[in-house]
C-alpha cells in the first residue's frame, strides 16, 4: 500500500513537471504581454505580471497594418474554408457512399498530394501567379491555400461519413423517402458535428500559414496576420511586450477553436487504427 502511494506521488510529480515545461513558453508569452516594460526588461525575470497593463496590446493593435492584416486573414480564411467545404463535401460523399471504378486511385491521390512538401511548391506557384498578375492579390493566396486545405478536408470528411451506418439511410429509403430526402434527413444531421470540426480545422490551417503569404504578398497593407507578426521581430527586434501581445492576439482565435474540436479531429484521424 505504501509503495503504491509513493508511486502515485512520483507519477503526479512527473506529470506536473511535464505540464510545467510544456506550458511555460505559452505562459511566458501571455504574462509578458501583460507586463510593463520595467518587468520585461529586468535583469532577474519577473515570474508573474504583478502590475498588469494593457499598454502592450494597445501598442500592438495601433501598429501600422494590424487591422488590415486581421481583415485580410479573415477574408482569405473564410473563402478558402467555404470553397473547400463545398468541393470536399461532394467528393467525400462519393468516396464514402459509392463504390466506383477509380475510387482507390482517387484515394491514393488525395493522400499522396498531402505528402508533397508545400515549401518546395512555392517557386512554381509564385512564377505562375506572377505571370497571371496575381501577386499581391488575395485571390492568389486563396487559390494557393486550396492546395493543402482541400485534400485534407476531403479526407477528414470522408472519415466522418464512413462512420454513418448505411443501414440508416436504407431504412429511410424503404420508408418511402427519396434518396435525396434520406440523405438530407439522416446523413446531414449525423455528420453536422464532423462538418463543423472539419471547417474549424481548415480555418486553423489557413490562419496559421506563413510562408506562402510571405512570398505572395509584399504590399504591407495586403499581408496576413502571421506575416505581420513575423515582420515584428526583424523590424523592431526588442519591442518584446507589443510583440508578445500581438502573438497572443494571433493565437487566441486558434486556441479557442482548437480546444472545441481537438477531440473530434483526433478521433477522425485515428478511428479504426487499433484493433484488438
Amino acid at each position, binding site marked *: 500500500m505504501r509503495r503504491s502511494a509513493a508511486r*502515485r506521488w512520483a*507519477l*503526479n510529480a512527473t*506529470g*506536473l513537471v*511535464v*505540464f510545467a515545461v*510544456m*506550458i511555460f*513558453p*505559452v505562459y511566458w508569452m501571455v504574462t509578458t504581454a501583460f507586463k510593463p516594460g520595467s518587468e*520585461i526588461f*529586468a535583469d532577474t*525575470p519577473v515570474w508573474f505580471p504583478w502590475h498588469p497593463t494593457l499598454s502592450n496590446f494597445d501598442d500592438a493593435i495601433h501598429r501600422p497594418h494590424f487591422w488590415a492584416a486581421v481583415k485580410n486573414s479573415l477574408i482569405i480564411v473564410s473563402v478558402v474554408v467555404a470553397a473547400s467545404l463545398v*468541393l470536399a463535401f461532394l*467528393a467525400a*460523399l*462519393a468516396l464514402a457512399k*459509392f*463504390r*466506383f471504378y477509380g475510387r482507390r486511385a482517387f*484515394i*491514393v491521390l488525395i*493522400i*499522396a498530394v498531402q505528402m*508533397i*512538401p508545400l*515549401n*518546395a511548391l512555392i*517557386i512554381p506557384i*509564385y512564377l*505562375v501567379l506572377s505571370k497571371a498578375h496575381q501577386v499581391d492579390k488575395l485571390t492568389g493566396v486563396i487559390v494557393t491555400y486550396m*492546395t493543402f486545405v482541400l485534400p485534407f478536408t476531403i479526407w477528414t470528411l470522408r472519415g466522418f461519413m464512413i462512420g454513418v451506418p*448505411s443501414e440508416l439511410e436504407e431504412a429511410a429509403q424503404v420508408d418511402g423517402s427519396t434518396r435525396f430526402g434520406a440523405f438530407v434527413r439522416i446523413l446531414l444531421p449525423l455528420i453536422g458535428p464532423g462538418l463543423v470540426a472539419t471547417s474549424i480545422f481548415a480555418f486553423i490551417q489557413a490562419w*496559421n500559414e*506563413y*510562408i506562402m503569404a510571405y*512570398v505572395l504578398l509584399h504590399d504591407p497593407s495586403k499581408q496576413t496576420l*502571421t506575416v505581420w507578426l*513575423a515582420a*515584428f*521581430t*526583424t523590424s523592431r527586434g*526588442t519591442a*518584446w511586450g507589443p*510583440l*508578445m501581445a500581438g*502573438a497572443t492576439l*494571433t*493565437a487566441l482565435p*486558434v*486556441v479557442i477553436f*482548437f*480546444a472545441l474540436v*481537438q477531440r473530434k479531429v*483526433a478521433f477522425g484521424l*485515428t478511428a*479504426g487504427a*487499433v484493433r*484488438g
Partner: protein
Amino acid sequence: MSRAGAGATPYALILPATLVIGAVLGYPLYFMVRLSFERYGLFQLIRHEGVWIGTQNYASIFHDATFWHVVLRTLAFTAVAVSLTMAIGTLIALLMAQLGSAMRLLLNVGLIFVWATPVVVAVDIWYWMVDFEFGVLNWLLTHLHLGDFNHHDWFANAWSGWSIITLLVVWGAIPFVAITVYAALTQVPRELVEAASIDGAHAWRVFRDVTVPLLKPIFIILASLSTIWDFQVFNQIWILRDEQPSPEYWSMAVYAYHTSFQTSEYGLGSAIAIVMVAIMLVVSFVYIRQMLKMGEAT
C-alpha cells in the same frame, strides 16, 4: 457502401475537387519539373519564359559541395527531431495512461495549448525566451550554475543554434504525437495487458510485446508524418534568423528558397526542390501504404 452501378453520380461528385486539385497542385508540380530543366533568371522572369538547358541545373547542384552539406544537415536534423518527438511523445502518452483523471486532464490541457499555438507565434515566443539580453533561458541556465550564460548568443555557434531550432520544433510537435498515442493506448484491450501481466511479464515486456505491435500502424503514420513535416523545416529558421539565415543555417527548403528568390535562379531552385520532393517520396510511400491498409479495415 456497396452501391455498384451508381452510374455517373460518383464521378460527377468528385469532378469539381479533381479539377481544382489538378489546377492548383498538378499544374505547379508539372511547371516545377519543367523549370528544373530551364535557365530561369531575372531576364527570363521578366519575359515569363525559361530557356531549356537540359540537365545542367542538376549537374551543377550535384557538383556543389554546399548542396550536399545542406542535404545531410536536413536529413540529420530530421532524424534527431523525429526521434525525439516520437520518444518523448510516447513517454508522455504512457505517463498519461498511468495518471489519475484530474492530473491527466491538466496535462491534456497543457498539450492542447501547445498544439494550438500557431508556428509563427511559437517561433516569436522562443525568439524572446532565448534573447541574449533579457531572455529567460540565459538567466535560468546561469542560476542553475550550468555556466555563465549572461549575454550568451545562441546563434553565434551553428550547433547551439540548431539545438534551439530542434527544441522549438520538437516542443511544438510533441502534443500531436502524445495525444494520438494516448488515444490509441486507450483502445488497447485491457484483457490483453492483464493476461500478459498475470503471466508474470514485466511492464516493459508488456509494452514491447503487447502494446507496441498493436500500436504499430499509429507509430508508422506518426513517424512518417513527422518526417515529412520536419524535413521541410523553414519557418522556424527563417524567422529566428531574421529572414536572412547564413549558410550554416540552410535547410533544403531554405536553400531552395534562397536560390530562387534571393539570387533569382528559379531553375536551379526548382532542381533543389525536386530533389527534396524525391527524397520525401520514399517516406510518403511507407505512409500511403499504411493508410491504405487501414482504409481497407474500415
